[in-house]
């Protein structure tokens, strides 16, 4: 029985990651789910959120902007709309984006069409900050 699982993370622009890891936790549609080696076949929509994976005792965080995950017993492939490693995240920019989104949300009414968009932008900023080790 394999003791590790292959994590592949692709975005439309690039292949971000292809690594053997021990454990992956991803932000699924209905909440976070964990994946260990020998997981059953599984296909999920991913929300905007933080994905983290553990390799022995080292934990890495990735900020995801939504996507899909396909899990097979020896592999998890994450097809993300956007994905950034913690060390790639510009915290200040994310903070500015959050402030901007928060300010706009105050002006917009709930049923405004752009409301959902701005809220998604806010969420992405928050996720970046969380993954990047900010507040």
């Amino acid at each position: 029985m394999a003791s590790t699982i292959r994590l592949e993370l692709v975005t439309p622009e690039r292949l971000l990651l292809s690594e053997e890891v021990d454990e992956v936790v991803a932000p699924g549609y209905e909440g976070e789910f964990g994946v260990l080696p020998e997981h059953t076949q599984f296909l999920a929509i991913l929300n905007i959120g933080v994905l983290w994976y553990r390799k022995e005792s080292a934990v890495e965080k990735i900020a995801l902007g939504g996507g899909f995950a396909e899990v097979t017993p020896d592999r998890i492939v994450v097809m993300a709309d956007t994905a950034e490693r913690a060390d790639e995240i510009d915290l200040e920019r994310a903070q500015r984006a959050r402030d901007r989104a928060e300010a706009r949300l105050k002006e917009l009414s709930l049923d405004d069409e752009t409301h959902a968009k701005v809220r998604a932008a806010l969420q992405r900023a928050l996720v970046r900050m969380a993954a990047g080790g900010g507040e």
Partner: protein
Amino acid sequence: MANLRAIRKRVSSVKSTQQITRAMKMVSAAKLRRAQDGINAARPYARKMREVVTAVAGRAGSDAHPLLTSREAKKLALLVVTSDRGLCGSFNSGLTRAVHRFLNEHRGEYEEITLFVVGRKGRDFFRRREIPIRKEYLGVLGSVSRNHAAAIANDLVGGFLAGEFDEVQIAFNEFRSAISQVVRFEKMFPIALESSGKAPGDEVDYLYEPSREEILATLLPKYVQTMIFRVLLESVAGEHGARMTAMDSATNNAVDMIARLTLQMNRARQATITTELTEIVSGAEALKG
């Protein structure tokens, strides 16, 4: 024989043209390399996307989502991907001509053909011929982004789901290599399922979260985006390749032209000198007499 000053002027004008074409060739070569990197970087995602779509749609069957269901193709939408800028050989003219021919040949087959055009060159072509364009996308090719592809995909998928057309095809220059681009027509959707050779149920089905239908509903439009994104990237790479080749031959032509003009110029100069000499000599002879 043309006069000396006129030839000199021509030479210097051809020389500056040559400088421009040479610079453009170099710029295109650099941009081509970047575009190729882009294609390569986008490949893993596109491949994975296709795998998953095939796997899921194959299990779900063609009734699971409208994008998979083929219906009688009465109304066709055609997305034509050209470039915004010219000076790239037959890159645009080859494509627009092929589309024009396609329109004439297939007019009888479909009740209606709706055109969507990417790129200023294609827009100008159809506008000149007064062929109506449903929607044009200009300036998306400078830096192809996921968002542009998404916007185009939304229009096409939206129209398809609303029943405005029954089939969507895309006409573009496929990037074979830096010197070879081939005009291609590709059916985009309804998505034809490649049969994997295995009967569905051969493999263990996935667990789905939330459900297979909901996943398909988000997955398929994204798949269309990915296809369009790929086509845009290929078209941009092809454009730079075509421009590089065109500018290379323009530079070579300029070199030949300069050589020919220089020869002409030297002959003209020689002729003037000979005439002057003859005049001096005959003048001297006359004085002797």
